[in-house]
């Protein structure tokens, strides 16, 4: 009896083999092959605001970029440091409230409040998450899930920062182009910077913490310090997104701690491809417009991206980016075994 089975054989494309060696610089075709993916991303992001028809869609672009930033923060923490943070809303909330209250009480301009909120918010977030950093997995996930809910309750109870009404009429940006290119620039910079960071010395330590923290500890490296550093770095961009959002709408309120900001970035990271940093950007650019168009159905959009997220984790855990990467670099065919 013979068992006939097929499997997919994958071979690198010739151009990939040539382009990744020293011959990569020898011809324009190879250089283009290497640069194309990044150029598409960068140019695409820069052109999008120019081609969009209406103000509404330009606002959607801003939201996309906010979710992309949160997605990058989540992806970095989950897949390069091993910390699953279910509370992206915490970053948004702290960044937003710091920027908002600085603007309304001291009248500082957005050019000052946003940097202060990014750094200050990141410092506070790191400080309050510090006690649970020595732990991993489910503990951290739970505590990070609790913080946003709790912050909303505290603000409600004490009536600080405008209580349930929030702080209205804050400063906004001078025009719609500043709106868009500010956040698009930050998304591009942070994508490239995080790609660089994870391959630096610090990044190697962080990745090894994810793989085997005992071994890192045995090498006389302070695990908690590096985890705190990672949370600080990730929450800088998270808090920036919050501060930016505050000045985008000129309003800050409890809805900054809403579940949307925690779940959609995770879904974006999963759809785009975990552990790639670019993945969340792609994911956010696919999910946010769909979620916006479902806004009429109320909470159905949360259901929608939860199901997409679960489906992707279970049935396509590699995510879109890695799938496209494979198609780009390799060709596949079936062979009989």
């Amino acid at each position, binding site marked *: 009896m013979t068992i006939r089975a097929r499997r997919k054989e994958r071979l690198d494309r010739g151009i990939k083999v040539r382009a990744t060696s020293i011959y990569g610089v020898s011809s324009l075709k190879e250089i283009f092959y290497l640069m194309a993916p990044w150029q598409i991303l960068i140019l695409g992001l820069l052109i999008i605001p120019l081609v969009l028809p209406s103000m509404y869609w330009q606002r959607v672009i801003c939201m996309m970029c906010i979710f992309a930033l949160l997605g990058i923060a989540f992806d970095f923490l989950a897949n390069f440091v091993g910390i699953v943070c279910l509370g992206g809303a915490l970053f948004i909330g702290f960044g937003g409230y710091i920027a908002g209250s600085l603007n309304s009480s001291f009248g500082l301009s957005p050019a000052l409040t946003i940097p202060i909120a990014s750094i200050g918010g990141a410092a506070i977030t790191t400080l309050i998450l510090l006690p649970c950093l020595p732990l991993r*997995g489910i503990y951290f996930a739970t505590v990070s899930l609790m913080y946003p809910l709790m912050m909303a309750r505290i603000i409600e109870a004490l009536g600080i920062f405008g209580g349930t009404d929030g702080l209205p009429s804050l400063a906004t940006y001078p025009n719609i182009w500043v709106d868009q290119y500010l956040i698009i620039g930050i998304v591009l910079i942070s994508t490239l910077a995080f790609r660089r960071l994870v391959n630096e010395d610090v990044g190697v330590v962080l990745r090894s913490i994810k793989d085997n923290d005992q071994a890192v500890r045995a090498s006389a490296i302070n695990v908690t310090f590096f985890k705190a550093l990672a949370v600080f770095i990730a929450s800088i961009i998270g808090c920036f997104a919050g501060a930016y959002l505050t000045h985008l709408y000129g309003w800050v309120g409890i809805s900054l701690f809403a579940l949307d900001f925690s779940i959609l970035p995770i879904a974006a990271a999963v759809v785009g491809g975990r552990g790639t940093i670019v993945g969340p950007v792609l994911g956010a650019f696919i999910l946010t417009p769909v979620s916006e168009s479902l806004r009429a159905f109320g909470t159905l959009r949360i*259901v929608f991206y939860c199901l997409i997220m679960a489906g992707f984790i279970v049935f396509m855990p590699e995510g879109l980016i890695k799938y496209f990467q494979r198609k780009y670099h390799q060709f596949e065919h079936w062979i009989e075994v």
Partner: protein
Amino acid sequence: MNLFVYGVVNSITLVLIALGFTLVYGVSRLPNFAHGALYILTGFVTWTFLHKLGINYTAAVFLALIFTGLVGAAIYQLLLVRVRGMPDSEIMVSFAIGVAIMESLRWKGFVGSSFVLSPFIEGTVNLWNVPIDLQRIFIVVEGLVVVALLWLFTHQTKIGLALRAIAQDEHAAMMLGIDSDLMAVLALALGSSLAGVAAIAILPLSNITVDAGYNVLIYAIAVCIVGGLGSWVGVLIAAFVLGFGQILTAAYIAPHYQMVVTLFVIILTLIVRPSGFMGRQKEIEERV
């Protein structure tokens, strides 16, 4: 006295909420973040059976429990089984499913004050001069009965022993012919039904709201973390600590701070004794 009586009631409530979660985690090391959703689902399913289909109360309750158990088993069999052993994915998938269930309930219009389950037993009694309604006493009795039954189940029946065997050493248990996946399905079905049992007892005290699901999930995990994940005695102790903590806060400070106290206890526990009160054997694994 007032504080004592309501503290006990609150603590038993927490025990009921946390039992299902700790059972699943203890047996299959699977953090079931859909726990709160299953809790609230049972409430709405019972309500639907009762008011839309006109089934009598007892039958509706049993059908709802079976339904929730099946949903739990389906979640494991269809989704979670494929990501076993990857803690990040387990958390994300079960959380996504939980949120999806809760938000689709909200979308289907299960919001408002018309969603009330009537208490099994009406009326109030005075207990040491403290007026308390019979439903709350029923919760205490049910909590104790469920704990006792679970203890009997896990110590006396063959399936219960198999569940504990898997929890202690999965490989050794598999060598003795215990099907690990089957046991995990069973544990999840049982855990979901336990969430349902808690829901049936507790929900008649007020309206059924979707937001309660999130709170239940958080309190369940809080109790388990403080008590030590997967430990029965730990759950009981932690529930009493948190239960009395919450009641005292509500009485002397303000009800809004209940969650702050819970979080404070968690963080204190994590600093002082990271594996919880009773979670001895997991100390090395969970902590760096």
